[in-house]
């Protein structure tokens, strides 16, 4: 096997995984919500981008933009229709909010999935790549789309890092994840913070969905698998830890790629599942998580 090939392929898929998981972990870190409609939101973004670029003739760039907007709108809809009503409901006891958010977002995800299947069938779709074609990297033929996917993912993650660590607004988000009650004492409205984080999440999930659709292709049947995969990466890295999720995404991406290259493509996902079980038994806070 040519090692460079493994490095390039693993890097591209890992960056995409990181992009898919980062929004999921952000929402959990800041507002404590495990959003089980995550996969569905990404699929909505991808399918809208596919339809806009192909059926409506918008071309790859406008199509991708339409996809990101769709992800953003769907994320905000998720927040206003499902998450917020549960968080503010008086009929639901506090200790059970978690199971309600889980069930509610799960149902919402199924609704999105079925709506996509109804309007666009459940056949897998692929988004037009932003730049088609291949280039040669030290003898390895690599599709430009793959490099674009990795580059956009890393750029988006970098921007998020700057936003959180270098801006005042970002520091408020960070504070909310550490001590929400303290934040309210300082006069910040928690619901405003939550709205901001869902807006950021929507853009991230939208980009992730469009990239996923262009690189691998998605179907409404993938919704569960996509959510499970983001969930696994986030738990592996440590719930709520953004750095941990990044590290975990690369562990998962490379482990899968190595398995496919060196052992057998038929058991590609098995080592990751085993690692997950092992980590959860031995180090439940995840690779880089806080207790």
């Amino acid at each position, binding site marked *: 096997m040519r090692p460079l090939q493994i490095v390039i392929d693993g890097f591209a898929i890992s960056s995409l995984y990181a992009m898919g998981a980062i929004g999921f972990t952000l929402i959990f870190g800041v507002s404590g919500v495990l959003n089980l409609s995550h996969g569905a939101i990404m699929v909505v973004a991808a399918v809208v981008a596919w339809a806009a670029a192909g059926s409506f003739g918008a071309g790859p760039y406008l199509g991708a933009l339409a996809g990101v907007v769709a992800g953003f709108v769907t994320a905000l809809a998720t927040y206003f229709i499902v998450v917020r009503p549960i968080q503010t409901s008086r009929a639901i006891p506090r200790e059970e909010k978690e199971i309600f958010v889980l069930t509610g977002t799960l149902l919402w995800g199924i609704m999105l999935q079925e709506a996509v299947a109804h309007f666009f069938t459940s056949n897998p779709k692929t988004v037009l790549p932003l730049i088609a074609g291949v280039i040669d990297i030290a003898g390895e033929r690599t599709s430009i789309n793959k490099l674009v996917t990795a580059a956009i993912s890393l750029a988006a993650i970098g921007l998020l890092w700057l936003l959180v660590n270098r801006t005042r607004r970002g520091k408020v988000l960070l504070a909310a994840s550490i001590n929400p009650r303290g934040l309210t004492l300082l006069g910040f409205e928690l619901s405003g913070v939550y709205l901001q984080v869902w807006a950021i999440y929507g853009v991230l999930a939208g980009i992730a969905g469009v990239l996923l659709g262009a690189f691998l292709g998605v179907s409404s049947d993938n919704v569960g698998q996509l959510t499970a995969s983001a969930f696994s990466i986030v738990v592996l890295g440590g719930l709520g830890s953004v750095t941990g999720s990044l590290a975990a995404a690369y562990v998962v991406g490379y482990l899968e790629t190595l398995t496919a290259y060196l052992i057998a493509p038929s058991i590609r996902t098995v080592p990751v599942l085993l690692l997950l079980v092992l980590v*959860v038994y031995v180090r439940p806070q995840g690779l880089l998580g806080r207790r």
Partner: protein
Amino acid sequence: MRTGRMAIAALIVLAALALLPFGSGEYVLGLLTLAFYFAVFAMSWDLLFGFAGEVNFGPSFLTGIGAYAAGLLNHYAHWPIWACVAVGAVAAVVAGVVLAIPALKLRGPYFGLVTLVAVLMLQNIITLFAGITGGEIGLDLPDVLSIDGATNYWIALAFMGISGAVLFGLSRSAAGLILQAAGQDAIQAAALGFNVAKHKLAAFCVSALFSGLSGAMLVFYMGTVSVGTVVDIAVGVQVIIAAVLGGRRTILGAAIGAVFLIVAGEILRPLGQLSTFVVSGVALAVILFFPGGFLGSFGRRRA
């Protein structure tokens, strides 16, 4: 007193259901037979969630183990049905204990993930060993419970009735109340001197026992065992929705939720793909506006 009234109401409903084969066609019976097995899945899940406070994202892991253990034995060794069902139930209990070990250490999302991964692993194993398990096309069984629709219906109804009685009784017993306390506040329950771990383990075993039993019974009703019917994540998701919809911590509510889901899905079938959309939408609305579920008011007043 509430408990007593609920039990009486349940008995009346069961008696009415038992008379159904005299007045209705094969179609309705077939639908309800499936719904009854499903109801046992949901009641087992509710016992674990409502009374041990553990969100099991992979109920189909336990039903799947029970179903495949029974199915493989019947297919290859031609054991009689009752023996296969018994082995299926035992296998599910063993699997339940394996799941319980992390559950006793982990909380919330972590345990949820373990259960989710368990289902994915089971699915992977079944696909990888397609030569033995039949993979995605499933495995046929030489034996079935009965070829008569009414007989199958009565078997399923009786099974649901007995399972429901046992699970409901357990949930209302002293042990059940301890579990309920432990589920809501484990530290306090332990402080009061209860061995929470022991009770939780028991809840896992009981939940797994009935999940495995119903999984095994279901495959002998259908004469086939396949991933799509007993293992798939979608099956587990339906179970969770059924239990929450019917009312958490009520056991009987889970059964009502399960029957509702299956019957509603069937009635809305002409809508095609949209039927699932509508059913999920209704379930979401119930959760948002009537968080107690169908039977919620009972549970709430008790607590």
